[in-house]
């Protein structure tokens, strides 16, 4: 995870440097630096990318702390703050255009929303999700009402405020860029420095508290981090969608890894990528609302992760399940053939012209396969060169198939004996699917297992012990 964080640092540095360089020498040829030529577009792109990185980190904590809904309540509760701050600024300074003032207002009511949720939770028996739902809609409703009041105020040109609802990147200026990079740097530092504390808190709050970690303070820190990212992201993504921008990259990252550190790094990467791609797309097609495009980009990455994630992705899971099924089928077939041939005596010949063809019907009975299933299983074994012929009369193994059948049968029987002998410790060690039993049990134990068999059942020349139970 340190590695992931290092990469992030470098990226963050380059992004900042790129924006800085362009600010100073934007008349120069900078086509080689970033995708788009226009200074403002590039500023927006870098800003949204940084925002995405910060959002991915903060969102991971929200998700793992199971506070996604809290984040939603927080972001919706920022709306009245924005409008109130605007009214306040108009009243005292004559203009409401200061981004810093607006997001301060946003942070105040956003946190107030969280406090109300916590109060409802501790003072009443209303359930968490209900409390958050109530706060979310009441604060948002208040914000919408205030917004409509402001729009009727004669002295204020309020064109800017609606952009906070759905997000508008075009209005970002250089000061915003500094704010966003500041937020990104802070969230990066916080996630790195408090990595172990946050992981402990998210996983097992009770244990953390019992060890003396100030879990409330850590929770507040985490919430402040989320608030910071939320309010600086409001302008680009908007009140309604910002929570998606926090949560979706984190959820996508979870599809790729089962490690906390990697999840943070990947979430930051996904967030950055969706910010960059989304803002780029909406810059190419002016009129597309940036926030929505960014969130849709993040969602597209999520769908991709859902399908292609190596651990929990749908494709990987399907492929794995299918491969496992095929392998088990194959082993059943080989063992079935071995057992049929064994009926004529221990250590049978398994391959060669002298070996009789095994009729289909006999094999079908071995595993209650339907004729069609069995054909499929044998066909796949044939393609692997394990089965020599598959004609109307029956099946015969190749030399390779014979070796595989002997090995599979031997391993299987050793496992059976092991399970019988060591029933108490066995389940955690048994791996029936393993090719090399010796690697797991050790040669010594295997010799003992073989020796513990009745004399008549000792391994024959090919080393296959007799089955410890009668074969069907």
């Amino acid at each position, binding site marked *: 995870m340190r590695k992931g964080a290092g990469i992030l640092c470098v990226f963050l540095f380059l992004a900042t440097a790129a924006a800085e360089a362009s600010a100073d020498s934007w008349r120069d040829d900078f086509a080689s630096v970033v995708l788009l030529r226009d200074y403002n577009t590039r500023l927006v792109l870098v800003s949204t990318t940084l925002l995405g990185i910060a959002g991915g980190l903060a969102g991971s904590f929200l998700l793992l702390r199971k506070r996604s809904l809290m984040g939603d309540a927080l972001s919706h509760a920022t709306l009245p703050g924005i409008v109130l701050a605007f009214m306040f600024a108009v009243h005292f300074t004559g203009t409401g255009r200061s981004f810093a003032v607006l997001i301060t207002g946003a942070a105040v009511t956003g946190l107030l929303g969280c406090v109300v949720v916590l109060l409802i939770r501790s003072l009443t028996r209303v359930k968490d999700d209900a409390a958050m739902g109530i706060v979310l809609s009441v604060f948002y409703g208040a914000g919408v009402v205030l917004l409509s009041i402001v729009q009727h105020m004669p002295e204020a040109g309020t064109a800017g405020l609606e952009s906070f609802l759905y997000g508008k990147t075009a209005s970002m200026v250089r000061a915003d860029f500094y704010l966003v990079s500041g937020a990104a740097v802070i969230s990066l530092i916080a996630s790195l420095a408090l990595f172990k504390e946050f992981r402990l808190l998210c*996983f097992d709050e*009770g244990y953390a508290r*019992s060890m003396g970690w100030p879990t409330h303070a850590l929770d507040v820190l985490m919430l402040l981090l989320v608030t910071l990212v939320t309010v600086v992201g409001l302008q680009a993504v908007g009140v309604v969608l910002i929570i998606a921008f926090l949560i979706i990259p984190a959820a996508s990252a979870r599809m790729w890894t*089962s490690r906390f550190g990697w999840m943070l790094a990947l979430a930051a990467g996904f967030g950055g990528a969706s910010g960059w791609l989304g803002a780029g797309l909406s810059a190419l097609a002016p009129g597309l609302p940036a926030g929505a495009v960014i969130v849709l980009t993040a969602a597209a990455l999520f769908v991709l992760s859902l399908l292609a994630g190596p651990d929990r992705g749908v494709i990987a899971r399907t492929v794995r399940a299918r491969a496992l099924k095929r392998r088990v089928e194959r082993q059943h077939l080989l063992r079935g053939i071995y057992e049929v041939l064994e009926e004529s005596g221990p250590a049978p010949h398994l391959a060669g012209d002298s070996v009789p063809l095994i009729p289909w019907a006999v094999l079908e009975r071995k595993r209650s396969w339907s004729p069609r299933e069995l054909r499929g299983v044998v066909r796949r074994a044939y393609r692997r060169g394990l089965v020599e012929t598959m004609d109307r009369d029956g099946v015969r193994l190749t030399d390779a198939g014979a070796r595989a059948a002997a090995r599979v049968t031997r391993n299987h029987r050793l496992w059976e004996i092991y399970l019988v002998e060591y029933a108490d410790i066995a389940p955690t060690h048994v791996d029936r699917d393993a090719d090399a039993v010796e690697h797991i049990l050790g040669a010594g134990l295997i010799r003992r297992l073989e020796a513990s068999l009745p004399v008549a059942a000792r391994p024959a020349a090919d080393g296959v012990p007799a089955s410890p139970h009668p074969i069907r």
Partner: protein
Amino acid sequence: MDQSLRERPVARLRGAGSVGLPEEHSPGSPLSVHDLTVAYHRKPVIWDIDLEIPEGKLVGIVGPNGAGKSTLMKACLELVPRSSGEVRIFGEPYRAQRKLVGYVPQRESVDWDFPVSVLDVVAMGTYGRLGWLRPVNRRCKGLAMEALEKVGLADFAHRQISQLSGGQQQRVFLARALAQDARVYFMDEPFAAVDAATERAIVGILHDLKRRGRTCLVVHHDLATVEEYFDWLVMLNMRVVASGPTAEVFTAENLRKTYGGKLTLLSEAATAVSKEAGGAE
């Protein structure tokens, strides 16, 4: 595992009045509780708890479901607010003694789908020693690995925690507390849903801790094994029914006071007691 087969250690008597109320917190006691009452939503769950646990004992805590056993542990560890009373660990408030206390929560208390490996979880036991901001280092991982070996899960160190069975997850929590190397352990139902072999392994670990002078408080449900496992017993049902050497307090009378009208439990206990009585003759 051999330790479990040893003779049940004979409980030493520490004065006959162990059921009585201790007036002072003795500095040597790993846990002394005075006048503790805990309430959820204004409804008191445990009342006027007075306890004095001697050092180096395996202490069983028994009582019916909802008796407040988990609540007692959580209150001692300041995980739930107290309505009244005080708790001392080696004569000091818990706050000052956290490093000496290891907690093994009930398994259901966390989400096992969390993205961490078994080793990561066990290493959490060493965070207290590490302190703020310092990253988990090789030494921590080494300690964690040792603890995993003790509970027989070394092979699983790098698995994601959701890929463990329930009993294995229970042992992961135990390993985490072992990595902490505390002097008093609070274990909430470490024997829940584990098979006989795992139970023996855990008992072995308990005896190992006892040999090293550690005190273990263990919430336990199986009355049939109480006498075998524990040399001190706390019988709880919203109040302390009895606390003292198992041989003294594990009586039919106390069981009836603890489990009351819960018939199935009572008969279970009765058979356990009659078995014991038969064996003593």
